[in-house]
């Protein structure tokens, strides 16, 4: 009841966002019960038409697109959450550290990040994943490291601004340690800008994974993955097969949903801090 009331108090954009995110979350959580077929099961001919026997048709080897999308939601959202979480954890930690410690720590970390950023992402992923293999933990590690770099820069910039606030100085004067300052003073106040970034980065994970699948890296089959679904069917588009549009639309929809939700959350958070 309370939740419902809260929901109706939101503006239409936020409501739409929540509907989208909850929809995909349900797909992700209950995939095996919702999906009509298995994610790797071959159910028909190649590229059966959309809205025929199979709602979204079949893919390039005859699997049910709808089922793959539903399982894909589970695989991708899970993976993206984990990866983005790690990226933000790492990036924010280092960013805060650089901003709080300043001096040579900041110099070393910043130069290191500059260095990693200036290596093309795909090449970096290619080199590391070729050496380690594409097991999911490695995939997560590589993407997390890649995305931790821009997060570092944002976190550092934000933390620099917070760090000059009197309450941080007050904590220093109290004799608080580094960890407290980072965790209790900087982190809660950096959440808003970081959250806004989280929304976008979350979706970039899909892109990077699909980019990796272009190079034959990426998620292991038979795990369905939206990026790979776009990739696998993409060549059909020039010939009037609209199949790749469906997973692409899913990625776009989720991106929009998550960003709408994040936007509201950010607005709310910044409203709370505002005095006037």
């Amino acid at each position, binding site marked *: 009841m309370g939740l419902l009331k809260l929901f109706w108090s939101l503006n239409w954009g936020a409501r739409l966002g929540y509907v989208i995110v909850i929809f995909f979350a349900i797909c992700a959580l209950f995939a095996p019960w919702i999906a009509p077929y298995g994610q790797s099961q071959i159910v028909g001919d190649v590229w059966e038409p959309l809205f025929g026997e199979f709602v979204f048709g079949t893919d390039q080897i005859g699997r049910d697109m709808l089922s793959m999308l539903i399982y894909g939601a589970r695989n991708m959202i899970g993976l993206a959450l984990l990866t983005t979480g790690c990226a933000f954890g790492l990036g924010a930690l280092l960013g805060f550290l650089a901003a709080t410690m300043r001096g040579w720590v900041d110099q070393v970390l910043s*130069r290191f990040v500059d260095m990693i950023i*200036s*290596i093309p*992402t*795909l090449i970096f992923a290619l*080199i590391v994943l070729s050496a380690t293999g594409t097991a999911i933990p490695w995939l997560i590690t590589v993407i997390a490291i890649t995305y931790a770099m821009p997060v570092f820069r944002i976190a550092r910039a934000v933390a620099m601004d917070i760090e000059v606030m009197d309450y941080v100085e007050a904590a220093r004067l109290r004799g608080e340690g580094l960890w407290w300052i980072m965790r209790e003073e900087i982190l809660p106040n950096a959440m808003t800008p970081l959250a806004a970034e989280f929304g976008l980065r979350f979706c970039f994970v899909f892109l990077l994974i699909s*980019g990796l699948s272009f190079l034959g890296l990426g998620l292991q089959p038979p795990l369905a993955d939206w990026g790979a679904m776009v990739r696998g069917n993409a060549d059909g*588009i020039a010939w009037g097969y609209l199949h790749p549009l469906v997973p692409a639309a899913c990625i*776009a929809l989720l991106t*929009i949903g998550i960003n709408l939700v994040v936007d509201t959350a950010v607005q709310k958070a910044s409203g709370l801090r505002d005095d006037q």
Partner: protein
Amino acid sequence: MLLKRLVLGILTLVAISLLITLGVEALSGDVCTAMMGQMASAAKVAACHSQLNLNLPMHERYLTWLWNFMQGDLGNALTNHRSIASLIGNRIGNTFFLAGLAALVAVPLALTLGVIAALYRNSFFDRAISIVTLSGISVPDFFIAYILMAIFAVWLGVLPAISNLDQSMDLWDRIYISALPVLTLTVAVSAHMMRMTRAAIVSLLASPYIEMAKLKGIRPSRIIIKHALPNALSPIIQVVMLNLAWLVVGVVIVEVVFVYPGLGALMIDAVFLRDMPVVQATAMVFASVYVILNLLADILSMLSNPRLRHRN
């Protein structure tokens, strides 16, 4: 200050070259096994090693490379023994041509859209453009490429599907043949720049000087363009530079899809082939672009800010 940044930049380059060396060395196989593929045998690999001086320890090869590199000698590719300078020469030009063209279209477009969105913020137009750009951001670039190819090359037949740029072409032909990759890249980068432009402007709208301008009876469009935009330039420049860097460095997939002879595809090939000097040379180009653009962004930010431009 600038000098310090420059020195740091050069140190970064050296560090990257070392990192790349270690990374590629850590990969299984080397240029010999990679070239021979299915056809490799121990004897042949050994022969190949001695031909290419791969028997030397890694640090020795690295230092030799570094020494030559510092003297401007990029060396020869291990695979086909062609001079790397000539191998990447045209491609650098092509890559910059593509990036430049895309930037020429994307930057004004993104800035204009960003300004308009900020001006009519929360209107239907703003929301629509926000959703369109979010979709643009979230669709993989190769897919944008295929869609544009389907529409403009296959269905409408007005633009070429592949962009096999040739040195003998004149400027107009080059632009025509690069149209689709430029469009693709424009879609890919505009969204980000446009959103950041809008955000940077909107974040300033609560400033006292914006309120002052309103109270001076200035038109909203003039307020945005004349009062907010100049002060939002610094973050916008940063984002533009980041995207420019991406246009040079991150377009491998677009190159492959449109058969555009750029540096990205060369680097991927070189990594696959473990052709270390080529990997190094391309990595150095990319890293320099990044370092230089960063430096440029800082200089421009400084110039855009009267506080830093006119120090008293």
